[in-house]
């Protein structure tokens, strides 16, 4: 298990390749990556992610450990950035390795669902007309009920 919380960009290609390389015992690798999205109707200047140092790593470890307890996984990777980033930049990624694709997919979705609303990150959007904190979506909270 590898959990990384950092400000600078990460290299999705290099991380995905390193995670997948040489897994002779694991047939299925799933990655999810989240990108700062720009709404053409309301152009975004920057996204700033605030986090809670200490608790963030603790929460991510807990979520990843829970995924490993629930599914048969060879490995789990979580990288999440904080600080300022521009549209098109990568915010975070998770990767899971499992013998079978069902485990790898479900575990990645579980990680994402919990990471969204149980890891202490808060997004602020800076647009031409001002700045605003992104509101939590009910459907993200609802997503937890399926696990």
């Amino acid at each position: 298990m590898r959990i990384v919380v950092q400000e600078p960009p990460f290299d999705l290609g290099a991380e995905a390749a390193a995670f997948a390389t040489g897994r002779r015992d694991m047939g299925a690798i799933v990655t999810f990556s989240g990108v700062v999205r720009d709404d053409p109707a309301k152009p975004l200047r920057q996204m700033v992610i605030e986090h809670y140092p200490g608790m963030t790593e603790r929460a991510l470890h807990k979520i990843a450990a829970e995924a490993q307890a629930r599914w048969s996984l060879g490995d789990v990777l979580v990288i999440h950035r904080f600080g300022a980033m521009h549209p098109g930049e990568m915010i975070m990624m998770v990767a899971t390795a499992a013998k079978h694709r069902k485990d790898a997919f479900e575990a990645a979705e579980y990680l994402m669902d919990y990471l969204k609303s149980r890891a202490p990150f808060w997004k602020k959007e800076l647009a031409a007309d001002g700045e605003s904190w992104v509101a939590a979506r009910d459907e993200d909270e609802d997503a937890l009920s399926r696990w």
Partner: protein
Amino acid sequence: MIDVLYFAWVRERIGLPREQVETRATTVAELVEELRAREERYALAFADLKALRVAVDQDLTDFDAPLAGAREVAFFPPMTGG
């Protein structure tokens, strides 16, 4: 003495990221009452507890959680990571 931390718009409304608080509160809810009584900006930040989350010693918990032995309490809006 307990460290109290604020994040996102809670931090902005209160105007600081953390402070040390001398308190005799035995639960998070009691601590919130003490903070609310301090100043208008605290009252505003804590106006709607349903819009807030709380962590005690870096674990998410409820507002009725006990504070016995706690070193750090953090208040923040629902998380929006990912």
